[in-house]
């Protein structure tokens, strides 16, 4: 097991542990939207396990990058878009959600039909667009949050902290994913360093959210 694999296993373990923690504390959240978080973590965990299997035992009908681009990432982004489209009153802004999902779906289709066989500066077009959409929705969330009464209780607001953690991860890793091929081809040392950073950030993101799930559970 090389160092990369060690980090990949660490990430898988972090996701599994987070899923386990969230399942344990699910009853405290059963009246809120966040009751779906354990399911989301479980799906991501199973998807990552499958991705690992595909990496070690490639199959002819789907490549590992395609599996991530057209299955794991869409599932992941769909849940995050759903979380980010919530208004201050907890209701989903359906129009925004549908608009963002359509944009992301178009990005996936373009990626699948025209771009996946070509090599650009980004690793995955659809992921880069998804990443940008998350950042833009987070800006919308914060701009509304600033002027709402919820800001008074931000310390106890799970949604605020969860979105903040997502934003730190997606904004922090955006340069890596948007310039993945450029970094890999021309700046290999930076690429590897950034790879370690992004996978560590991923572990931290899942663990932080699961710890928040414990600490901010409804009494």
């Amino acid at each position, binding site marked *: 097991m090389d160092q990369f694999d060690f980090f990949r296993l660490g990430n898988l373990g972090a996701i599994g542990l987070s899923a386990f923690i969230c399942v344990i504390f699910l009853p405290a959240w059963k009246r809120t939207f966040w009751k779906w978080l354990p399911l989301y973590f479980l799906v991501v965990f199973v998807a990552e396990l499958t991705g690992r299997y595909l990496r070690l035992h490639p199959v002819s009908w789907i490549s590992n990058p395609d599996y991530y681009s057209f299955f794991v990432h869409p599932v992941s982004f769909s849940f995050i878009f759903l979380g980010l489209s919530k208004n201050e009153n907890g209701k989903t802004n359906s129009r925004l959600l549908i608009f963002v999902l359509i944009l992301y779906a178009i990005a996936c289709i373009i990626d699948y039909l025209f771009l996946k066989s070509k090599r650009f500066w980004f690793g995955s077009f659809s992921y880069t667009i998804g990443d940008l959409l998350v950042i833009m929705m987070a800006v919308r969330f*914060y701009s509304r949050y*600033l*002027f709402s*009464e919820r*800001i*008074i209780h*931000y310390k106890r607001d799970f949604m605020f902290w969860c979105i903040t953690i997502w934003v730190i991860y997606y904004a922090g890793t955006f340069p890596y994913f948007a310039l993945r091929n450029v970094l890999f081809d021309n700046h290999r040392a930076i690429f590897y360093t950034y790879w370690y950073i992004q996978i560590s950030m991923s572990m931290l993101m899942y663990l932080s959210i699961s710890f928040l799930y414990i600490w901010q559970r409804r009494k």
Partner: protein
Amino acid sequence: MAGLFIFLAQYRKKRHEHMNELSRKEEDHLRELHFARLEMQQQTMQDIGQEIHDSVGQKLTLAALYTQQLDYEGNYPEIKDRIVRISDIVNESIQELRNLSKGLNSGYFEQTTLASLIQHECNRVQASGKCTVSHQLENTIDVNAPVKMVVVRILQEFFQNSLKHADCTIIDVKLMAEQRHYSLFIKDNGKGFDPSSASDNSGAGLINFQRRAKLIGATIALFSAPGNGTSLTLHFSS
């Protein structure tokens, strides 16, 4: 970083607004509570007033009738003077009870103007012969019954303190109006006291004034100095 600063600034602003709102609501709640207590007091007083008028008053009236009948029949000429005296005392008691009953009745506060209520109190003290009360009262003031009741109670307490502790000979009362803001000034020429070194009783009296004034959202100021008398200023509105 800029976003973080904006967030923190906005948080502080919203929290400040929230705390102000909370304290305003708490004040409103307290005021409502005070008014509810005042209404209960009023109701109790009204009941006592009614009871005095209906029960004790009727019995005293009956006693007065019996004594007058004794006097009329003339069966006991040797104690005629005493019977007349008893009759007078009973009649005086009836009159005093009527006045007391009237004072306890909230309907009385509703129907009587603040100037008349104050004048009545001034006349009462003047009639006691203990000191001279001069008054200058604005007659057009229209405030609700709880406000009138609180103002009158403050006036009564001031009179009581002046007569009991100040050894005063003159009390001045002024009731003034400026648009919808009213002021009551009371001043005695008694021996005064040092408010900063007031005894427990005086301190409690001052707190009592302030508590009553707070009930109607009024501001109150009490000035006194040894040898210079005591004055009280009450500002209130409708």
